[in-house]
């Protein structure tokens, strides 16, 4: 029987980690990830996990020790936010390159500076090219569910890539929601035992991990990573299917919300999806043909699924909670635009940057985006492609 609890996002993910019972967790505190680690440390102190807890002197060492533990043959996890992720950066790439199936919750927070502890997606956006799978969470339940599924996705023999599951700092990490926890033994069976094919601690079969790799083979190893990324979607779907049987909750690469006969839609990720769904409901009640596309899996980017969803629409707005300075919009916008070119799908796409540094986004702002789209459809004129929500002009 699932247990229903009132949990913050951090607590929900800590419970997921308790149930996963990783062999090694190496971590360093940073707001707003701190309470996740507090909670997990309490589980550890009470003997509820077998985990070896390595409390490092920095995030750089946290990721380094996690890499060491994973290469040794352990199921290893860490968690961080923003500047902590930035300090890990070098090793974030190495973890993916070494093909270590590490799972890392990242509590999304603005990446300095000036320093700011609140939510935006600039931290994980910065390492979207690092070779990690990135899965965004709409609410605390999803954060919990994603953490469990991530283990199975990363460790799948066709994948062997690390996964970041993200949840919006404070908005989810510190907000109490109703969360349904699977039974401990159900999770234990779901994630299974971890048996890597090669491990440093298998001393009778010595391996060399992380060699110097020069012009003659480095390229081939990158090609392997590209290939592994192409294998991710079927595995995510398969794991989601197994998870749905246990939980009744089914997840796709994207979620289409009231999109079937929609003419206009917005695309976004993370906790704002919940607010946006409310706006869609309000507008639907008023007879407007609007819908929403939630991107759940951001890396690899679900081009086909998004393209198929866009085909039905007359205009779309992409809401980005991060900036990609010097380009023509936010990172999600750039990716969405790239799905269209040369594929016979052509529709106006505009971009809104919102919520940087934790700036609130409300229903009125989201509604204004739908209103803008209405004008674009009516007039046929796109106007400004890069727009802002909640910014004082």
């Amino acid at each position, binding site marked *: 029987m699932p247990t229903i609890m009132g949990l913050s996002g951090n607590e929900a993910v800590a419970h997921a980690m308790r149930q996963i019972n990783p062999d090694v967790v190496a971590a360093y505190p940073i707001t707003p990830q701190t309470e996740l680690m507090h909670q997990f440390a309490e589980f550890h102190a009470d003997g509820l996990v077998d985990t070896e807890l390595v409390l490092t002197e920095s995030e750089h060492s946290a990721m380094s020790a996690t890499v060491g533990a994973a290469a040794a043959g352990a199921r290893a996890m860490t968690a961080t936010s923003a500047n902590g992720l930035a300090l890990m950066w070098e090793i974030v790439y190495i973890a993916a390159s070494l093909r270590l199936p590490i799972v890392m919750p990242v509590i999304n927070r603005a990446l300095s500076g000036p320093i700011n502890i609140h939510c935006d997606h600039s931290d994980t956006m910065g390492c979207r090219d690092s070779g990690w799978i990135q899965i965004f969470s709409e609410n605390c339940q999803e954060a919990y569910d994603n953490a469990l599924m991530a283990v199975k996705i990363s460790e799948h023999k066709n994948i062997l890539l690390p996964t970041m599951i993200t949840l919006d700092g404070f908005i989810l990490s510190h907000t109490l929601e109703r969360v349904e926890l699977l039974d401990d033994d159900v999770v234990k069976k779901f994630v299974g035992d971890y048996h890597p094919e090669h491990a440093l601690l298998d001393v009778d079969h010595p391996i060399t*991990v992380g060699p110097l790799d020069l012009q003659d083979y480095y390229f081939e190893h990158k*090609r392997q990573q590209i290939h592994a990324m192409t294998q991710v979607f079927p595995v995510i779907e398969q794991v989601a299917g197994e998870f749905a049987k246990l939980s009744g909750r089914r997840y796709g690469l994207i979620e289409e919300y009231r999109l079937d006969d929609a003419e206009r839609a917005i695309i976004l990720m993370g906790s704002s999806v919940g607010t946006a769904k409310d706006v869609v409901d309000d507008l639907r009640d008023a007879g407007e043909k609007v819908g929403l596309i939630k991107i759940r899996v951001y890396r690899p980017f679900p081009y086909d699924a998004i393209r198929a969803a866009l085909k039905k629409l007359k205009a779309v707005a992409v809401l980005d909670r991060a900036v990609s300075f010097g380009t023509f919009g936010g990172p999600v916008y750039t990716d969405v635009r790239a799905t269209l070119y040369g594929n016979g799908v052509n529709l106006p796409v505009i971009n809104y940057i919102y919520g940087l540094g934790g700036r609130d986004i409300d229903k009125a702002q989201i509604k204004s985006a739908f209103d803008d789209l209405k004008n674009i459809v009516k007039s046929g004129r796109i106007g400004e492609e890069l727009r802002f929500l909640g910014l004082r002009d």
Partner: protein
Amino acid sequence: MSEKSWKEIPIGGLILEPGASRRYKTGSWRSFKPIWFEERCIQCLACWNACPEPCIMVMDGKVTGIDYDYCKGCGLCAKVCPEKAHAIEMQAEF
């Protein structure tokens, strides 16, 4: 070197063959060659203990020769060979 495709090599840069460097012969780097004189050798193993490769061959606790496949000709072995023995001499290779 056999040039394998990305489908044929272990993922992640993993090397599964311990000591695979033995297939990479460094002897061609040498410009001076140590010559070992068995009759003068007092079997102190100082040369073995000073060789960075290592390429002083030892069997059952005794030096049996120098592995020129790997010897880079640094001369450390000759240097540490006790003066009274003088069992290793350096010779110009070319």
